[in-house]
């Protein structure tokens, strides 16, 4: 039942956004709606992840949820609530400075809700074709949010985004069709529902499954930002409206990972784990290597964070590639911890850029004096993002590296440690200069609006308590990881 509320509330908000005339007030209604979505998704997560981990929820043969879907819906709702909270202050600021008109602010909220609705659909649908359609809709809607400010840069970013992702997603459709072909020639009744494909995966044609999975990985991998198909990502993330950058990086990439996992489960059952695992590790390590190089030489603040997203997607892929138990747990936790930490950082970057009016990190100096609250949050978030203990990303990365050592893949573990330490250094270097350093002249101390502060605290709370919660849920996690593939 909760799933209808989770999908229904964004629909109601879309209708409200159409009729409601005052965007400043609507922002508050919007985040109240997403708070409700968050509550329902927690209930759903509790039901499917903790109370009945083997259970599922199915409606009309169209919606089908198991613990994996519940987890991804939870992550999506956390970030979309934080983004809706942050949007209140951000859009109000844009309106006050007359960067956008009231009409445009209304369009923003309309698109925001459409975007979130499409992302909630991805883990909820049972049909692999509908999964494809939902992911394509997320691209189409968010392209407008990337090109929102209508500058030359943002329109260029939106064009690259829509073309590269459409190309990728068409390859994913080819993969999906090959999966359904494998199903059709096996003599079973035709179906594209994943829950019907998993039990019979072992009798499907192995060669077709292998070829199909390559297309799936390249196709959805484009959307997930895996290198070398990542070229749209830094452009889109740096040009989008800041709350949307957080959504893009925090959840949109994860929905593509979810799609890869759904097909991956079928492939693992049909072909064996080694094929899936090696491909995931390969793409993951390439992503880490490429993002590592770009993080070091980066000059643009939001692009730096975008390349760091590529890095973290790489880590997630390596984690899933290493397999049960520790690799899968680590990757799953990393999906969540990266989502909250990166959203926090994008919100911080949004505040900084609003004040300094520049993306260039060489111009931004002394943030901690100009904006004490944002400055401290960004400083802590930076350490969290780079994988410093007691923050959440440390635990997930630790689990993944431990999985690599336990499995005997010393090369993978070594490469992970190497790239992570280089990126850590680069982050401290870049953020150290920005946060401290001499403040430019005639800059007064600026206070953030309440909604922005709340969204920071909401995310930061999750970044911190994560490690303390971990011991209490380890039984469920292990159980989940053992059953995933």
């Amino acid at each position, binding site marked *: 039942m909760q799933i209808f509320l989770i999908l229904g509330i964004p629909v109601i908000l879309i209708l409200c956004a159409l009729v409601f005339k005052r965007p400043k007030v609507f922002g508050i209604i919007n985040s109240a709606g997403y708070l409700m979505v968050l509550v329902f998704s927690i209930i759903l997560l509790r039901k499917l992840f903790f109370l009945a981990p083997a259970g599922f929820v199915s409606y009309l043969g169209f919606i089908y949820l198991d613990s994996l879907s519940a987890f991804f819906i939870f992550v999506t709702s956390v970030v979309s609530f934080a983004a809706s909270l942050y949007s209140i202050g951000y859009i109000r600021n844009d309106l006050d400075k007359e960067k956008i008109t009231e009409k445009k602010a209304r369009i923003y909220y309309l698109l925001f809700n459409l975007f979130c609705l499409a992302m909630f659909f991805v883990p909820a649908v049972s049909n692999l074709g509908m999964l*494809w*359609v939902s992911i*394509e809709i997320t691209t189409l809607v968010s392209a407008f949010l990337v090109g929102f400010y209508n500058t030359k840069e943002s*329109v260029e970013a939106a064009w690259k985004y829509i073309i590269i992702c459409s*190309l990728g997603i068409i390859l994913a459709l080819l993969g999906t069709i090959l999966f*359904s072909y494998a199903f059709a020639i096996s003599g079973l009744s035709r179906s594209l529902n994943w829950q019907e494909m998993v039990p019979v995966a072992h009798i499907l044609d192995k060669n077709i499954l292998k070829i199909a999975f390559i297309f799936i990985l390249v196709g959805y991998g484009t959307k997930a930002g895996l290198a070398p198909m990542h070229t749209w990502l830094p452009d889109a993330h740096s040009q989008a409206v800041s709350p949307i950058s957080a959504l893009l990086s925090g959840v949109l990439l994860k929905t593509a990972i979810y799609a890869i996992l759904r097909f991956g489960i079928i492939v693992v059952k049909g072909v064996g784990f080694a094929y899936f695992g090696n491909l995931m590790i390969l793409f993951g390590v390439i992503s880490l290597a490429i993002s590592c190089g770009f993080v070091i030489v980066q000059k643009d603040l939001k*692009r730096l964070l975008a390349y760091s997203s590529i890095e973290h997607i790489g880590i997630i892929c390596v984690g899933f590639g290493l397999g049960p138990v520790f690799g899968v747990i680590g990757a799953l936790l990393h999906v969540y911890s990266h989502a909250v930490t990166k959203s926090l950082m994008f919100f911080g970057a949004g505040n900084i850029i609003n004040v300094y009016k520049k993306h260039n990190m060489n111009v931004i100096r002394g943030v901690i004096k100009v904006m004490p609250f944002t400055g401290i949050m960004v400083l802590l978030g930076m350490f969290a993002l780079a994988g410093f203990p007691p923050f959440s990303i440390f635990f997930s990365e630790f689990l993944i590296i431990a999985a690599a050592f336990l499995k005997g893949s010393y090369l993978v573990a070594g490469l992970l440690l190497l790239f992570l330490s280089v990126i850590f250094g680069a982050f401290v270097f870049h953020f150290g200069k920005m946060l401290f350093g001499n403040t430019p002249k005639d800059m007064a101390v600026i206070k953030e609006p309440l909604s922005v502060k709340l969204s920071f605290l909401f995310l930061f709370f999750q970044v911190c308590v994560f490690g303390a919660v971990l011991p209490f849920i380890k039984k469920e996690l292990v159980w989940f990881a053992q059953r995933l593939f």
Partner: protein
Amino acid sequence: MQAIILFGVLVSTYLMIIAKRLPALISSFRIQSFFLFLATLSIAVNERQLDLYIISGLLFLIKVCIIPHFLYRIIKKIKVSEDVGMLLNVQISLLFAFFLTYLSWALSGKIISIGNQAQVVVLAVSFFAILTGVFLMIFRITALSQIIGLLVMENGLFLLAATVSGGMPFFVEIAIFFDVFVSVVIMGFFIYRINKLFTHIDVNKLSRLKG
């Protein structure tokens, strides 16, 4: 009958590779879509299913009528040169096309087990259309030809889905149609914006964002 339709798809795809002007590209796309329509219609007649009739009707409406018309209108409105912007000239493109044809033939032979020659041909033609779409997206530099490249890929996929795997479920098919249509409209919208801001639609010159 099927052989003629497949031959038609193949020829119209070759026409797209050698097209030098945008209207020629669009009209060959229209021809290709028309052959696709014939293919689905023939399957519909054979299997006597209402679903397939609806799908072929939608195909005719969207891909043969609306989308080409919409693309022609964009060309008329933005008043840029009608050149497709070839990065490779016709001769080399044609050589590429031969290579792609061979490649798709080889690939489809691998996927389908022995003894099913008719399916291998269908698979090869649809792979060829998909690869041609990729080719058009990479080696033609105007934004409009990139859209057509995407549509050609989609056509190839449609042929693959309809003939080889016996089609997708009905509502998925409808959703994909809707999706393709919406994405073309949105891309057209962005072409207007690009043209307004940059006064050209040459995507090779979109290089403000780097690193």
